[in-house]
């Protein structure tokens, strides 16, 4: 989503118009049902053991919901932390380092969580 003025003027200082704001909202909307599902699943699983968690993630709908929750959540986190860093880290070099660390953290931890979920689901 870009404002017409943003397109004309080269999208403002960040060069991406209202894209960041918009995707933060899209992920927030998607997280509403996904977080409800996740919390309900945690309640249901809280009394269970390892076998019940594995059995749960072997079913297709919970697997899909879990992957969507992880992908959306980590994306939302990356966008959100970016704003926090831009607000508080003044030094340009430090800011760049923090933004890189944020992206690496979210991509790394997010990918690890996704791979673990897939391994549980498709493992023996």
């Amino acid at each position: 989503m870009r404002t017409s003025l943003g397109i004309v003027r080269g999208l403002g200082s960040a060069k991406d118009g209202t894209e960041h704001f918009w995707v933060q909202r899209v992920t927030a909307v998607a997280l509403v049902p996904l977080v409800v599902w996740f919390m309900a699943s945690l309640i249901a699983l809280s009394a269970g053991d390892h076998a019940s968690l594995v059995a749960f993630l072997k079913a297709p709908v919970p697997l899909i919901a879990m992957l969507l929750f992880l992908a959306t959540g980590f994306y939302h986190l990356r966008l959100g932390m970016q704003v926090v860093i831009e607000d508080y880290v003044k030094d340009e070099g430090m800011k760049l380092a923090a933004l890189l660390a944020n992206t690496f953290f979210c991509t790394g931890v997010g990918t690890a969580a996704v791979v673990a979920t897939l391994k549980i689901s498709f493992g023996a």
Partner: protein
Amino acid sequence: MSISKAAINRPTSPHLSIYKPQISSIPSITHRITGVGLGAGTVWLAWWLIAAASGPEAFATVQAFSGSIIGRLLLLGFTWAICFHFINGVRHLIWDLGYGFDLKSMEMSGWFTVYGSVGLTGLIWVAAIMMRGAL
């Protein structure tokens, strides 16, 4: 390009240290704190999933930590954090649609967020304890 002194020393806003905490500002900063806190909590979530993927023994280690006093206190904190961020997040989305931005509605929804997040946390824990058949 020369930068004037006034531009360098321009005041930063808002002056949090001299600002009275209000029902407008408290949920705002709490949304940020809970967002960052939940971000840190994703390490625990990933650890839980990775352990479950490695097998029952690794999983038992995570469950032992989660079941300890510290683990339970942290889980209680994270439950509240996600409830708060959830309710206040929906509040943000409603504002984005153009509703509820007058002072009276904003104050009401602010208090709703504060009490609602505590109430929802309680409900979730009661539900989880009931699942364990301990209630």
